[in-house]
């Protein structure tokens, strides 16, 4: 069985993924803020470096997989945190342990969101993240001037980070695969997690307007296990032919809202 590292494995989709991986006999290293194996704040460069250093110390022979689940919602009220954790926190860890993944021909799964297909992203921010991601502080300064208390602004920045993350994965997937490392993304629909449980009524109303066809007639969200099982699949050898793919795991929301997008 393999050795997997996961970010945000203490709750929500991440916690369920840890559970499923362990059930299959894998060893899992959880990087989070609490109830974890490596305590590190991935919103900061120092926290990211700490996590990378610890993983190298613990598993110098390599990793079979890296799963990036850490993130905050657009309703968190902190636009800089959305950018620094969701985007930079993810790509920094992937880049930082790429050498460990190469050693074992490992896999990587990043968590984006099905909202990337719904046209709500601030595309200028997404473009800046993809094209100028060596200038994190400048980008943080830019979003710090925006109104973080405005839910639609928060959502547009959140979607931008997830869009940029999916595009970053696509841009790197061919090179990674040529070096023996598969990288893919899952795009979950709205999931029952601590993140969604604490949302305001306005935010919940917006959630319910993203209907989940498999949950039709029930004002309910997806179960974390529905997402985690796909992450585990993408991380497994069963998915050895899958690379550079953004897999929507949203009960059909994307298909409902974008019937004409087949590619």
């Amino acid at each position, binding site marked *: 069985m393999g050795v997997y590292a996961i970010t945000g494995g203490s709750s929500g989709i991440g916690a369920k993924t840890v559970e499923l991986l362990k059930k299959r006999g894998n060893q899992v290293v959880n990087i989070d803020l609490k109830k974890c194996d490596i305590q590190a704040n991935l919103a900061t460069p120092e926290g990211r470096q700490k996590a990378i250093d610890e993983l190298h110390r613990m598993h110098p022979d390599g990793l079979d997989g890296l799963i990036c689940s850490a993130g905050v919602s657009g309703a968190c009220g902190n636009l800089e945190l959305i950018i620094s954790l969701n985007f930079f926190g993810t790509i920094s860890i992937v880049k930082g342990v790429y050498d460990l993944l190469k050693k074992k021909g490992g896999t990587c799964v990043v968590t984006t969101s099905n909202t990337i297909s719904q*046209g709500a992203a601030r595309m200028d921010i997404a473009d800046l993240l993809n094209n100028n991601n060596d200038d994190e502080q400048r980008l943080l300064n830019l979003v710090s001037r925006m109104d973080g208390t405005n839910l639609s602004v928060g959502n547009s920045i959140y979607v931008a980070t997830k869009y940029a993350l999916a595009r970053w994965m696509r841009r790197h997937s061919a090179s990674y695969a040529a070096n023996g490392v598969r990288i893919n993304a899952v795009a979950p629909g709205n999931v029952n997690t601590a993140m969604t449980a604490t949302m305001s009524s306005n935010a919940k109303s917006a959630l319910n307007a*993203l209907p989940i066809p498999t949950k039709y007639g029930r004002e309910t969200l997806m179960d974390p296990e529905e997402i985690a099982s796909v992450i585990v699949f993408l991380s497994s050898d069963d998915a050895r032919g899958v690379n550079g793919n953004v897999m929507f795991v949203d009960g059909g929301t994307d298909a*409902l809202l974008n019937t004409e997008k087949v590619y």
Partner: protein
Amino acid sequence: MKPIQQFIEVIENKDFAALGALFTPDGHYCDYCANGTAQHEYHLYGKEAIAMFFRNKFLFRQYSIMGAAVLDDRHAEFIASFGGYNIMAIVTLQQLSEDGHIKRLTVRPK
């Protein structure tokens, strides 16, 4: 009230549930106007899908109509706004079931 009038009324009121209920279980809603906007054509099959789809579009202000005029039992025209991009449109009830539900509806640029 005739089906074409009901259709206009529920769209104007942004009543997604009532909109879905106007259709047969496998009813088809086809809107070609979105080409040229930031959105894709609408091809929706089934009353549940129609209701779910428009719940999203209405709440996020991605679809609305104004200046509607019923032309006859099968046709009406209006200005459709796709997230602020306006198109003069004409709707046609192509097929109705015996009990008056919509089996196929098309919206095209006028």
